[in-house]
């Protein structure tokens, strides 16, 4: 049982390493960073306490929002999805990503207190 799981995982990692273009790997690294930041914030809240709650919320929402936006960017940039995004060029995706991030940052900074 564990053997098959292990083999599936190793197979997946191998596929990932070989077939994913570099750009996407860059975004994936960014995604991992965002994820870890969010997890660590949550860990703090669980261990130490929710004071000040608004700061925790804004930080956590920032992580979640950034993750979502980055995922969107990844989907839009992926050449395999080109057929779904005929009107959206990668540059346009990146511009959208930046604009959305500006709004997110505004909201987060307002709420962090």
């Amino acid at each position, binding site marked *: 049982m564990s053997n098959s799981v292990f083999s599936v995982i190793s197979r997946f990692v191998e596929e990932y390493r070989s077939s994913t273009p*570099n750009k996407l*790997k*860059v975004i994936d*690294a*960014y995604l*991992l*960073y*965002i994820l*870890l*930041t969010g997890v*660590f*914030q949550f*860990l*703090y809240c669980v261990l*130490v*306490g929710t*004071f000040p709650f608004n700061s925790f919320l804004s*930080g956590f929402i920032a992580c979640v929002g950034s993750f979502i936006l980055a995922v969107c960017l990844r989907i839009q940039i992926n050449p395999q999805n080109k057929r779904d995004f005929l009107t959206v*060029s*990668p*540059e*346009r995706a*990146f*511009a959208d990503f*930046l604009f959305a991030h*500006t709004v997110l*940052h*505004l909201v987060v*900074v*307002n709420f*962090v207190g």
Partner: protein
Amino acid sequence: MAHLCLFSLLVLSMVLETQALTPTHHLTTTDVARLQAVLSQPFTDLKSAYYSVVGLSKLGILVADADETCQFIKSNLDPSSVESLFYAAEASQALSGCEIPVSNDTRDLLLATVSEDSTASQIHQSVSALSSLGLPLASQEVVSALKARISKEDNVLTIILALQTASRLSQQAELGDILEEIEDLAARLDDLSGVYLQFEEGLETTALFVSAAYALSDHVDMEPPLKEDQVIQLVNSIFSKKSWDSLSEAFSVASAAESLSNNRFHVPVIVSAQGPAAISHSQPFLRLQVTDVLCQPLSSASVLVESASTSSSKSAILSQAPFTLRDEVFELNFMASQPASGYYQFSVAIAGDSRFVANHVELKVKVSTRVAINNMDLSVVDKDQSTGPKTTRVEYPTKAKAPFMADSHQNFAMAFQLVDETTGVELTPHQTFVRLHNQKTGQEVVFVAEPDSKNLYKFELDTTERKTEFDSISGTYALYLMMGDATLENPILWNVADVVLKFLDEEAPSTIQAKTLYTPKPEIQHLFREPEKKPPTVVSNAFTALVLSPFLLLLILWVKLGANISNFTLSPSTFLFHIGHAAMLGLMYVYWTHLNMFQTMKYLAIIGSLTFLAGNRMLAQKAVKRLEGK
């Protein structure tokens, strides 16, 4: 025939039931004396002499020094002034044996004043002077002059003066139109809450109206169109003021009082009880003073009690009982009917003259009596009633010789009867209290003794039950019986006996707390909201480092992946874009620390638009490059 009788009886009963007004304000003898004093003040000029002399004559009082007054009048007379002639003529008329010399010029002056062009006051003065001096005058001319004057000036005082003038004219003259003015004037009176009727011009005008209206009505022998209630309301208005601002006001009140006592049609009757309307065995007569408005007794009247009934039940004790006149006071021996003590409603009628107004009066009379306490029995009863009660009889006003002992096993009881001293009828006064007074501590407890169905008063003291009222303080208490009522002549405070009470669980007698209601209360300390407990700084710092650590990981990964910066085209738009982007991130930090949303939006708009333009450029170039590279 029977139907007619029944109908007339019904009508009569309805008429009797209507409540007529009675005067609420009238002059008492002291008020009349004060009025007289005001009018008797030494006069300084002819006008005040006129008011004093004529005013006093209206009150029926003759001036002391008639000759001196006459001399004064003659010396102050100015024959060229109509007003002066008027005052002199009227005043001399009131004094006996005072004659004012009249010359032809004077007469001509007075006659000439009677015309449409003079004011109503001038016409009045000249006509009165002519009449008092015994000079002839043309009544019809006067009437037409007055009518013209009234049509020109429609104010109240003009019409009143016209009425007064008309009363001095010959009876053959056409006074009908002027007589009608009385009714019109009466309609102009203001009714104040159904009690007062007066002109808005004031008391003096109202009083002058009354005297003028009755003077004219008497002169033409026609009843003035004033209803009885209106007459009473006028009485209330005129006689409600008991001190007068000016001599003319006092004069007008005296003049109104005289006309209301002496006219041929309406004489208001003032009925007042002499002293409080209270009767007892020592004072069995109800005394009433029946006077006119000038406090002169109406000896011709016959006073009758139509009915006298108790306030609670409507059964009449007396019916149609006459009062007897003695020394100008009407009295009735009410005690002869042996009324029980209490309040009675008397309905009194004054007859004897058809002119009497307000001659039905309702009076409330109190009958008081003396109370006697019978059969005062004090006893100490065992609670379990093992032994019979020991009863001691105490006679009022002595005190029981031995004190009574009552502890927790016994009850102390008291029973007595209250009767009317003379008739022996049982009484239930309003206040029957039993007071226990501890001489040592000064504490007192008061209970109410209640009568049972047979009007026997009982009081029982259960020591265990009443422990709290006494604060469980044992000791000797003096027992008092307090009794009082409005209809009792002899309220009673009787120290009946001493009672020694023993309470169980006697606490140390607590000092009676002075009322702490008005002393400053303990200060409230405000607790500010305590800041939340923060974790130690070490923990916070450690976690901050932990949260920031993935950034390092990101950089490492990016370097490992070979994220290239090599495609960095050196064009101005690229520079601008990156600088703008960095500036936006910097603005975010500044927003967090210093700015508010509005300022941020302002800066963001500027930087953002620059970054957008630059970025647009840059990305477009990149896209072109990408497409070319394809």
